[in-house]
């Protein structure tokens, strides 16, 4: 089945239609970001300094957590081999919504210098919904911090998050994932494992 969907379009109309309660909750959400930093490519080198004294991401409420269950944001830092993609998808589906994805570096945007590679994906956005792309090869911690600030602004404005797209267009993403990973991706969808209905995240 073909699904007419393109990953980049975000619903701007929702911006001004938040109720007061939603606004407050979104403000709190934007103030507290728990990150699971998935170091895949060279960008992993630039992530730890972001959380150290020099750049101090905790100023903006951004802290690292050790498990995807507690995380709000996953950072995919650079090129993704097919093998790693499997784990990234698994990690992403274990996170609790609302959840967001930050793609770090050119490789996450369009394959970067791994464009020709036989075992890396090119566009991360086709496999999991990316909320924020930070470009550069490799991006400096300042760029990542700005990415966080922009993401927080969007959460505050109540814009539609990638996780909603993922739930709505699950078939689109699963089709793309199966294209590179084969038919047997496990879990096919995390909710299936716990025998929940499709479309429900855990």
């Amino acid at each position, binding site marked *: 089945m073909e699904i007419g969907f393109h990953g980049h379009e975000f619903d701007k109309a929702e911006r001004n239609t938040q109720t007061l309660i939603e606004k407050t909750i979104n403000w*709190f959400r934007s103030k*507290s970001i728990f990150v699971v930093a998935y170091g895949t490519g060279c960008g992993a080198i630039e992530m730890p300094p972001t959380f150290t004294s*020099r750049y101090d991401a905790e100023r903006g409420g951004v802290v690292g957590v050790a*498990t995807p*269950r507690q995380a*709000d944001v996953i950072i995919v830092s650079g090129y993704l081999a097919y093998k790693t993609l499997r784990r990234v998808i698994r990690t992403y589906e274990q996170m*609790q919504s*609302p959840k967001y994805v930050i793609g770090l570096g050119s490789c996450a945007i369009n394959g970067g210098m791994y464009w020709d590679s036989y075992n890396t994906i090119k566009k991360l956005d086709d496999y999991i919904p990316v909320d924020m792309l930070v470009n550069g090869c490799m991006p400096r911690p300042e760029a990542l911090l700005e990415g966080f600030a922009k993401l927080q602004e969007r959460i505050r404005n109540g814009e539609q998050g990638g996780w909603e797209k993922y739930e709505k267009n699950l078939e689109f993403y699963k089709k793309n994932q199966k294209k590179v990973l084969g038919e047997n991706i496990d879990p096919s969808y995390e909710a299936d494992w716990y025998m929940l209905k499709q479309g429900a*995240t*855990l």
Partner: protein
Amino acid sequence: MILQILELIVIAYVVGFIYFGTYRNITARIQGRYGPTIYQSFFDSIKLFSKKSSASFGWMFYLGPIIMATGAVMTLMFIPLFNDSDFLRSVTVQGNLFLLLYLMVLGPLGNALAVGTGGNPFGVMGVTRGLSRLFGLELPFYIAIVGLIIASNSADIVHIMDLQKINGLNIWNHPFLFIAAMISMVGFFGESPFDIPGAPQEVYSGPRTEFSGKFLALLMSQGSLFAFAKLVLVTDLFLGGADSLGMLLLKTFAIFITLIFIGIVYGRYKVSQAVDFLMKIPTLIGLIGLVRIIWFG
């Protein structure tokens, strides 16, 4: 009565979270960075409560955080906040130290049950570490409390507080017991060097690994309630309690900040090292205090 308990919970929730925010801020300053505001823990907890989904593993998993929260609230209810006023005294007249000690271990047990249901090996590992550490932590703490009970001839907290008005503060009268209790407190607060159960680098935050969204929020909230309860308990037992809210905050914060400063400068002990240390040094200090009371009155 119900209203009082609710007031108590709200005060403990707010104060506990602001203390933890301050803790994060001070840690940041010591590490040479700005760090989050003191309200950061609030933001975290409200965000977690407003999560749209929370992974669950059956009804026992639901009960775990609830048992822990119950333990925290009960502990809080049986500790008198102020010296002479009936304000916020809730049910303390019926409670005493023995009941309190019993209630304080309710939380860890509830947690162990829930983590077991989750089935995550890291969680189970964290709980095992936590429970073995608990043996070490409780020994000096219990010795300190038994010492106070003997010295005051009563297990009633209110009575112990009243006695201190006549005899002077217990921190000066029984310094050994105070030191033993404080070392245990460092562990009860999950500070270094006794923070092995939740080591994020080894067991992925241990007992909390599988808790997400509302479960984690509940765990955090009960943590801050429980922390406040323990601070008030030490204040009551050793610092003679408080007459006003300002005094209470001052005294509890003084204890809290001492614990933080101890925690920040130490590395992490292994489980065996921690239990070894706790069974030797603080236990010995506590015993010296106990012998001193029994022989010299």
